[in-house]
């Protein structure tokens, strides 16, 4: 009994830790996207995580990044001795699983498939998009508080750190924006401007409207992709049955593992 309780507590802890792993393309936690379908702690030191993406064809580099992200997040918990990450039903799944569980460094596994190139180009591109999306939400939140463009672009890092939002997306995104701002070195000192562009340029008060238009495109694209991914994940294993009242979606397919199933059968 005691062991079972401990096991489920540790599993909860793992689920919590997995919230820090994001889909780089969407900048959303993989747990929220429903990608993680099984977490098992076998002997208080070994963790098995299985995840599944919305389609068989999702980009392998993002699949790799998420797999390594999971591994890293779990390994950072002091009680964990071993991690096994399993990507299910994906066109590059075998290679991803072999790479992430090989114990070899992230960049070495990648280099095999990139003629020695690293992932910095892709990582930069999607960090930039994530930054834009988070920044837009914060800027719109500040606007909604009645701040004018001049006041907003003059804000410093320490001033922004003192801002509080009453819930909503801006309350969620503010700490995430600050994280990226600081970890990317875009604002280091308390007096540094809180709203540089991704390239590190200052934004003039009269350019805020134009700047927001560009951020808006990025956000709409990401939201659209997020909606598509969520939808595809939901219907990936469904089929249509035509009954007396017309067509309905049925949740059952013989021999297939349903996303989120309690006891998945290994394929």
């Amino acid at each position: 009994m005691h062991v079972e309780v401990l096991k489920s507590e540790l599993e909860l802890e793992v689920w919590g830790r997995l919230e820090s792993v994001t889909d780089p393309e969407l900048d959303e936690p993989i747990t929220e996207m429903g990608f993680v379908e099984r977490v098992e702690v076998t002997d208080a030191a070994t963790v098995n995580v299985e995840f599944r993406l919305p389609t068989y064809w999702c980009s392998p580099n993002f699949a790799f990044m998420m797999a390594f992200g999971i591994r890293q997040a779990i390994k950072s918990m002091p009680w964990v001795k071993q991690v096994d990450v399993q990507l299910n039903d994906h066109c590059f799944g075998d290679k991803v699983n072999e790479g992430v569980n090989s114990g070899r460094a992230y960049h070495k596994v990648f280099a095999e498939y990139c003629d020695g190139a690293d992932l910095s180009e892709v990582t930069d591109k999607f960090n930039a998009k994530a930054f834009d999306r988070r920044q837009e939400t914060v800027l719109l939140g500040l606007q909604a508080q009645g701040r004018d463009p001049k006041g907003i672009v003059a804000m410093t890092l320490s001033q922004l750190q003192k801002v509080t939002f009453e819930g909503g997306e801006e309350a969620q995104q503010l700490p995430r924006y600050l994280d990226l701002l600081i970890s990317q070195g875009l604002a280091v000192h308390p007096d540094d401007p809180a709203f540089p562009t991704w390239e590190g340029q200052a934004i003039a008060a009269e350019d805020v409207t134009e700047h927001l238009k560009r951020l808006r495109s990025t956000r709409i694209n990401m939201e659209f992709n997020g909606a598509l991914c969520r939808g595809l994940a939901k219907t990936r294993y469904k089929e249509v049955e035509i009954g007396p009242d017309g067509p309905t979606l049925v949740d059952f397919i013989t021999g297939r593992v349903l996303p989120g199933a309690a006891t998945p059968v290994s394929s």
Partner: protein
Amino acid sequence: MFKTPDGKEIFVLDGHTHFWDGSPENQSNVHGKQFIDCFYAYHTNLSPEDQLWEKAKFEKYSADDVYRDLFVDGPDDMAIIQSTYLSDFYKNGFSSIERSHSMAERHPERFIVNGTFDPRDGEKALEYIHYMKETFDIKGVKMYTAEWNGDSKGWALNDPAAYKCFELCDKLGIRNIHVHKGPTIIPLSKDAFDVHDVDYAATDFQNLNWIIEHCGLPRLDDFCWIATQETNVYGGLAVAMPFIHSRPRYFGEVMAELLWWVGEDKLLFGSDYAIWTPQWLVEKFWDYQIPDDIAQERGVQLTDEIKEKILGLNAAKIYDIDVEAKKAQLAGSPVQMAAE
């Protein structure tokens, strides 16, 4: 022909349709199965419930289904049938030009059958372009950059081998290049859906029209930026369209972006048949208005005039179709299903 509630007749040219065979008998391996399964997930995810098809029908539908869904029940006047081989996944090709052409022969005045080629085939690709021009007099091709070909798991429009093919297309008057940017697999160091090769190809081949299907989704933002700078880049609305039902507000945001960046003259309707059927898409599209707050922010709206361009006039222009003459021709030969 779509008739508006006040009786106006709207010419509909469906820019992106298929006549595929994804059935288990035609699948070569698990990838073939997963490919059609993925299409089916798009279908089940984004269709209204009363429009859902059973899997077996979705995998392989008949020529009669095409006629009925596009022209009898559906409002299309004409449809562009795209070819995609996926030879590594399907024994006789996923949708071959020969199969589509023989299906279209019953009503040739209603179809434009496009070809396809794989630049990685080198000299053979060039020979194949000649064959398609001579045999089927193609006006356009569909490019699928994520297609697997042996060890290669994708290619880019600005690869030297691709440029040779586009030079030949230009020479032979194959002017419409439809591009589907699927996920390329290797190298992992690049964004698998990157659309920047469109920029190079469109700049270097000014005589060709580059129709980017799905508006570059999932890279709509990058696509908008490119399309706004190139006069010969168009956006195909397939995949964006069905959001009009499931997420109408997103659809409004996407349309507002596209109208603002790409413009009303460069957007092409496509049902992506048989993933979706055109009847409900066109009806909902005609009824649709971009929500006021979004429309005001971008200063755009889907007026009737703009909808008419998107539904058919824009595509007619790049395929050299005289719409009035075509309407008269079609009025003289209505589509009818054979008695059962």
